[in-house]
């Protein structure tokens, strides 16, 4: 692999790694969602630094040019991350559904309770007047 390309790959992976860590430090990214990103940047960084491993991987997969194997791995991670987000989103929408239902039921019961209390209090108010 060309030395320039290797430098770009290493810098890119390192940049991603630092960015993820920084976001976790600032509490802008939950650890739960940072794990897959960390794994991704570690693997890409490892393959960019350790050229022999990348060459072996490329040969095993039948990829002629080693840098393409790096792209392949990176794209694989992106797909995995996207799927992970879809799953997280499904979970969130289910949670918000449960919350909305609970809120609606509570609101109805509160409304009814207030109505029945107003009904009970009315004669008392009348006698005061």
């Amino acid at each position: 692999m060309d030395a320039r390309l290797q430098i770009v790959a290493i810098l890119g992976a390192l940049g991603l790694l630092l960015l993820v860590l920084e976001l976790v430090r600032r509490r802008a990214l939950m650890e739960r969602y940072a794990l897959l990103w960390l794994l991704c940047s570690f693997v890409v960084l490892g393959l960019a630094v350790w050229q022999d491993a990348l060459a072996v991987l490329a040969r095993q997969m039948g990829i002629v040019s080693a840098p393409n194997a790096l792209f392949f791995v990176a794209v694989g991670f992106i797909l995995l991350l996207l799927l992970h987000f879809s799953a997280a989103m499904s979970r969130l929408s289910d949670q918000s559904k449960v919350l909305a239902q609970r809120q609606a039921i509570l609101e109805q019961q509160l409304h009814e309770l207030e109505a029945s209390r107003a009904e009970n209090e009315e004669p008392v108010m009348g006698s005061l007047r």
Partner: protein
Amino acid sequence: MPYRTPLIERSSCLAVVPAYNEEATVAGVVSDLRRTAPQLDVVVIDDGSTDATARCAEQAGARILRMPFNLGIGGAVQACFKYAHEQGYDFMVQVDGDGQHDPAEIAKLFRAMGESDRPDMICGSRFADATGYVAPISRRTGIHVFAFLLSRLLRQPVTDPTSGFRLYNRRAIAVFARDYPHDYPEVEAVLMLHHHRLTMREVPVRMFQRGGGVSSIGSGKSFYYMVKVLLALFVGLGRRRAVPEPGEPAAVAAESGI
């Protein structure tokens, strides 16, 4: 206050009317219900409407379950199952807010529920009998595909699995309070019930063309509807349990502690 029913005097049967932007028809449905079936408590689920649906329904004398945002028919109806379950209703009947279902037919559903084979859910079917209802062609094809599949899976004739005119008993309410499909729920619900070894029956009913508003299934969405329900049916067959039990990790629906 229009809440004429105090907490103690409750009927044992709840009528629920899901409505999303149905201000034109919902009041008529509620007053029809109260006239033809005065023994029912009526709840209108306002599924995040942007029009006066809730106000119209309240003035017509219904209780309102107002969703903070549009959940879709599945989530909205499930809220009613939870409500009915918690309030201890024995039966729940579901009537669309668009005036498509005839409240006078509810008596038929109850008669079928009382028969000796003790079904847990009664569906009002447009096709079990010649009743003069004509659905749009795109819809009819889908309905017949689902009807065919469900009839095979349940080993009993199912003619109108997309009908939302249904009566549930306590056991069905308990199952659906715990888990109910998200969007386009009717077809999957039949299968879920079957997996729980609960039974359903159809009775022929008369239905009207929609009185106003826009159906939750536009023509463009018909295809998505087909694919989504087919996916749900076939993936659902691979589940170990149709409805998650409380404590199981997978679904959030099971965490709500019902």
